[in-house]
């Protein structure tokens, strides 16, 4: 599965556009991480726990998007966009969407 965030797949010809596919996930870290993050808010610096959380979630969202694309017979997803929103304190929603296409 080829995933790009441009209109085309470089070096390949798109033969079929299959429309929108998307993947989402909502994840949270355990309370211990939340408390550590609260402490980090005093000293500053990277919140490793949350970085990890968002990375994992984004990967899963992408995974689900790819699964949708595969289910409708596509072999590439172009013009992929990510969006992140916090639906609840400590929980992050990751959303990935793009257009499933068939390249030759």
């Amino acid at each position: 599965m080829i995933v790009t965030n441009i209109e085309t797949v470089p070096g390949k010809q798109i033969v079929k556009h299959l429309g929108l596919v998307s993947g989402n996930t909502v994840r949270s870290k355990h309370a211990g991480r939340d408390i550590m993050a609260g402490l980090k808010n005093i000293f500053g610096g990277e919140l490793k726990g949350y970085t990890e959380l968002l990375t994992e979630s984004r990967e899963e969202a992408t995974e689900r998007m790819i699964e949708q694309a595969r289910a409708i017979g596509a072999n590439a997803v172009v013009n992929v966009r990510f969006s992140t929103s916090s639906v609840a304190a400590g929980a992050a929603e990751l959303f990935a969407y793009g257009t499933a296409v068939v390249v030759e």
Partner: protein
Amino acid sequence: MAEYENPQIPEGINVSTTHPLKDFALLVGGISALILVAVLALSLLAGQLARHVPFEQERALAGSLGRWLPETPAQPVHRERQQYLQQLADRLGAAMDLPPEMTLTVHYSASNTVNALATLGGHIVVFQGLIDTLPSENALAMVMAHEIAHIRHRHPIVAMGRGFAVIFALSSLAGIGDGAMQQWLTGVGMLPILSFSRSQEEQADADALQAMLRTYGHVGDAAAFFEHIARQQTSGEPLAIFSTHPGHEERIERIRQFAQSHDKQEATATTPLPGFMKENAEKTKGTPKDSLS
């Protein structure tokens, strides 16, 4: 020229299929267990630490907190009662091998509350209401020995340590979740405290019986107070597991067993209470609140 179409995407890729109730049950069970264990561990630890606080420190702490303790009574008869109680406590204390630095201070309250309590710094409060319900000195000694046993085992300061630990634990949970959830969390967190106190009461009862045996040579009338309470309590007993004190029946039974295995002579002559101790034994039929604390 490429083709353009929108094939149908199968359902269920973006939604987890776990049943919400299963998720709910797992979470509630798991988190309850987690909090129980955490609070249990924390309060045990705090209790152990508090046990190592020197008794002088505890006394000093009690001095700063103990303003609510009854004053030395003004009436001569009350003073006489207080002195009598103090002597009784000292005798029992000697029988229980209290460490030398552990001194007992008995306070007398003329209130008709049916209660006696032990608190920080070796202070014991005995209420007239309690004395009026008791048939003999032995019965009073049993109640006081119970309180002295609490002090000997440092139960008041351990309870305080645990109390602080639990308050700390629960207030750190306060930042999480909204009203209903917090309430539930607090309820779960309180459970271990109740069971602790039960084992402490049983320990105090056992020690008090030993002290009785050593002081009087028998344990006659030891169950008098609990029998009195059991008689008075016509309404159904609250669930035994949720009350800090063992059920009265259970206690009476335990005392009987102890008496059977330890009393040598059948004739257990009890020492009567001095006449000045009774206020008006006939009139006091006040409903007993909770028994010993």
